């Protein structure tokens, strides 16, 4: 009985979970989680495409350093990237940087590395004949990439981008470390205040994350099926 009583705690704080202290303070909770994920996702798609194109460049002086950086970022935990940004950003900018922008920067750097791998794989999956045909009609290599290969590759990549957005939503929970008041941070605050219902509180936010991520995962599966169907006909 007591177990179920605990869920009242969530109902009492529901506003806090959803929008943080918004009208009287900064926005937070689920809204901030989504905002962080969407902003970092958009930025890292753009950077990922640029890095991905550099990774398939024919010029070794460009390709090798980019590949090295991408693999280094993929080799370290996100937590490390967050700490690096926390130290480096103020040093480079010369001023204090708001924590939420530190997180956006860290998530963008981290996810761009993964995005670039998606882009690279997507470009390599386009049959080579397309490149050759483009070149023989007299287009330059760059133009073939931009006008012929990339538009086709991007369409195939959309499901992977959605999956990466799901990872990003899950990764925004690490913003808790530097004190950004997103959903997980709000949950720890509510938990610290109420003390005796941690299982209910963390289960509740797990369900919130699950609903958000599961919708996106299902969407990306549906997209994948549709793409496979289109290719089949």
């Amino acid at each position: 009985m007591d177990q179920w009583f605990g869920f009242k705690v969530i109902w009492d704080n529901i506003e806090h979970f959803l929008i943080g202290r918004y009208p009287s303070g900064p926005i937070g909770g689920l809204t901030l989680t989504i905002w962080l994920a969407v902003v970092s996702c958009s930025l890292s798609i753009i950077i990922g495409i640029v890095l991905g194109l550099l990774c398939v460049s024919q010029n070794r002086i460009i390709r090798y350093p980019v590949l090295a950086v991408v693999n280094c970022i993929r080799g370290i935990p996100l937590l490390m990237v967050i700490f690096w940004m926390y130290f480096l950003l103020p040093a480079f900018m010369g001023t204090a940087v708001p924590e939420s922008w530190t997180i956006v920067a860290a998530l963008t750097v981290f996810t761009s590395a993964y995005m670039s791998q998606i882009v690279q794989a997507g470009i390599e999956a386009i049959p080579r004949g397309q490149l050759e045909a483009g070149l023989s009609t007299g287009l330059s290599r760059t133009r073939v990439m931009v006008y012929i290969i990339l538009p086709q590759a991007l369409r195939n990549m959309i499901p992977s981008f959605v999956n990466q957005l799901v990872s990003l939503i899950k990764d925004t929970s690490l913003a808790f470390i530097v004190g950004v008041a997103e959903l997980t941070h709000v949950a720890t605050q509510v938990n610290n205040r109420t003390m005796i219902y941690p299982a209910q509180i963390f289960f509740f936010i797990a369900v919130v994350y699950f609903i958000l991520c599961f919708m996106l995962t299902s969407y990306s599966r549906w997209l994948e099926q549709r793409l496979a169907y289109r290719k089949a006909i």
Partner: protein
Amino acid sequence: MFQYEFDWSVVLTGQYAQWIVDGIKVTIQLSAVSIVLSFLMGLLIAVMRLSHVGPVRWIAQGYLEFIRNTPLLVQFFFWYFGSFQILPQSVNDWLNARDFEFSAAVIALTIYTSAFIAEDIRSGIRSIPKEQMEAARSSGFSYIRSMQYIILPQAVRITIPPLISQFLNLTKNSSLAMTIGVAELTYQARQVESYTFKGFEAFTAATLVYLMLSLIITALVTLYDKKVLSPTGMK
């Protein structure tokens, strides 16, 4: 640009270097225990997922979806803060008598990673053409024996690279254990930073350790792909 005196001796010698080394040990212990447990659990879930009994399959499916679509950090907090409400008193006493933070981290990492491992194992098994099973069955092998002699030996070969990259992810994810107070590598790096204000040195040391671990393992997987998988035509 910025005035900062680098002092590498902080992380190379003395007490603080010892902290970093201790951190590496805990990271390796935590990862090793969780790797073994999550592999066993992943195998179990994968088998349940392929079962012919509906409810068993649904339970496995629900588990996979829920765990994969929930942040690891939330799972850490759930087990760390919530285990006293969920687990029976005797189990809690047993855990408390030992290193409770470490156990909570192992539980969270095992449950999280097992969901990913189960999917890898399942797709490994499913990548073996169905005809192989039919051929084995029609030459008189039982279902178990066909699995044992025909399907699994091939599936294991294909599954090894994704499995190893899951283990690598687990090692990287173990850095989250610092949030519940396990003194692993990232925790110790932060500790050194707060004692000495030498953040760059401390985090460089930790980053290099993670990087070395990742690059070595990635190189081994690439080698495996080239030497073992490509010659058999499986890749």
